[in-house]
């Protein structure tokens, strides 16, 4: 239990990479990349978690109540925005690639080099 969330983060990281490596569809690869990224959310939030702590919001509870780390939340928020924007860009690239090559399969488009 004391390591479980960290192990899950490592698992998500590798399983997402496996998806990218074996992907036959660029859109699929982009979604797999978002799984890789989600591992960093899990890792960050698990590191800042304090057993028995409340959310770091002192509206109904007084300051001084044991709370989890607010910093990892702020970091993860940034991370989520990064993830969404990178995914959007990649999807746009994938759509355009399909338009040029007529396929989304990385095996099928040979590189442009001579």
């Amino acid at each position, binding site marked *: 239990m004391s390591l479980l969330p960290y192990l899950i983060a490592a698992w998500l990281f590798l399983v997402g990479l496996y998806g990218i*490596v074996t992907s036959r569809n660029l859109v699929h690869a982009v979604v797999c990349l978002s799984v890789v990224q989600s591992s960093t959310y899990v890792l960050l939030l698990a590191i800042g978690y304090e057993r028995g702590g409340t959310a770091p919001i002192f509206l109904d509870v007084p300051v001084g109540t044991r709370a989890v780390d607010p910093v990892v939340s702020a970091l993860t928020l940034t991370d989520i925005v990064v993830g969404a924007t990178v995914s959007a860009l*990649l999807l746009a690239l994938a759509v355009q690639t399909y338009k040029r090559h007529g396929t989304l399969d990385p095996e099928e*488009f040979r590189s442009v080099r001579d």
Partner: protein
Amino acid sequence: MGALPALPVAVPLLVAAALVGLAPVIRRRPADAVAVATAATVAGLCAALLLQAAGGPVVYWFGGWTPRQGIALGVAFAIDPVGAGLATLAGVLATAALVFSWRYFEAVGTLYHSLMLVFLAGIVGFCLSGDLFNMFVFYELLSVSAYALAGYRTEDPGSLQGALNFAITNSVGAFLVLAGIALLYGRSGALNLAQLGQALASGPADRLVVVAFLLLLVGFFVKAAVVPFHFWLADAYAMAPTPVGMLFAGVVSELGLYALARVYWTVFSGPLAADAGGLRAVLLGAGVVTALVGGVMCLLQHHLTRLLAYATISHVGLTLTGLALLGPAGLGGAVLYAVADGLIKGSLFASVGIVQYHLGSVDELALRGRGRHLPWTATLVVLGALGLAGVPPFGTFLGKALMEEAAGAAGHAWLTALFVVVAALTAAALLRAAGRVFLGLGGPPARAVDAPPGPAHPTMLAPAALLLAGALAIGLVPGLAGRVELAAARFTDRPAYAAAVLQGASGPGGADAESHPPGYPAGPAGWATLAAVLGLALGIWPLLRRRPSGLRGRAAARLWAPVGAALRSLHNGHIGDSVTWLVVGMAAFGTLLALVVR
């Protein structure tokens, strides 16, 4: 506390947003002018910071959140001459690139200008930041802009594929960096580099420290395109529009190495101090392999921008060897070399852009003899090739001389041989291309295609010429070597950095300037000349022979061909392959580090 440190990031971001908001009412030329003026302003602001930082570190706490009892609550820019110098380089290159775009792009809206300014702000923030997570944010900012810019020429299918591979591989690299940050945060509860360094210095180099260093190292190596993390680079750089390529090759590759140096000397140099010898061997190995693979691949190309892209990889390898010596002397040489080399790469990308614009192609075989009416461009390419080879008095020579000196002092004098070989390989490739394109050597002239006739427009020639002049100036400024070594000495002084950031201790900490003898050391100058001559021979000689080869040549070709073919097939631009190599590299570096540390 003055406003200066915040402005080189805030100004381009504000202008970028304004350009998008005003897109319906602003015309092309005013938008060009605003973008150029903004980039030049950033360059000026960074230069001012550089001067200020030369007198002592400049620490700027955003929001006024100065640390309490050594605990950083906010985010700081911690500006030293190395970071400010790289930021200035980025500003100069961006200005040159935007001037170049004036004529190069027929019709662009303001979106391109905005994206370039955001890109520049990302680079500058990355160079100035003293906070690990803040570095990650700026790293992503510059990366996301770069992905879009790399795919900017959407009519080119290669461009899209290059951008996709670029974005996926670099994103994985960024997540590795973030995972490394998370590990360090879990151990120390800090994100400020100085505070992290203090927290780690008291502990051992245990498994967490090793793996955190591994994750950051691999993430930054992906950005720097160190072998085997380099498979994305050639497609992305070669297919990007020329002005974007100028920035990519000129400064972005070096940023990965800068970041590694920064985190090593602020955070890890305490716990890893005892293992510096093993670490040096690992980094030196990576640098040597990168330099050689890049150099050989460079010689194999006849697509000019792809050729320059591999030259970039090769020179990142050289810079890494300087850094790998893990001492201030090697670092100083590496910094000087990287800046001069960046200016020359920017100039060369611009020259190739002129070729592309006026001759409608960047394939040296399809261009044979067609560049005869571009004498200025030809001159710039040849001078650039000599600059890349490190011929005096270019700044690259001075940087290499410092690195060689440091290598000799550290018992690695053999690095000189590597420098000669790599300089010869990349110079050979460029001189061969110049010989073909501008002199028509090696065969009948190619058929012309429809393209705007010469002569090249001043807005395209001037940036290329001025960047090259900058690289010359770096080699000629008296006393620069001594100043750079002083800056490097301060860069590597972890306690002084921490004191400046966390306690506000000012004043030039660290070692005093080593007085560096003026003038050019004869030995290194001789080696550099040898490299240039070798490069000339290797590049031009095959073009002058009537028939392809004699018996011996054929035997050599038979030996050489499979190597070339294997290298080519490895560099196939497949996304799955790039990511697989990334994981292979991570496993390899991780195993080496685990063996080397303790």
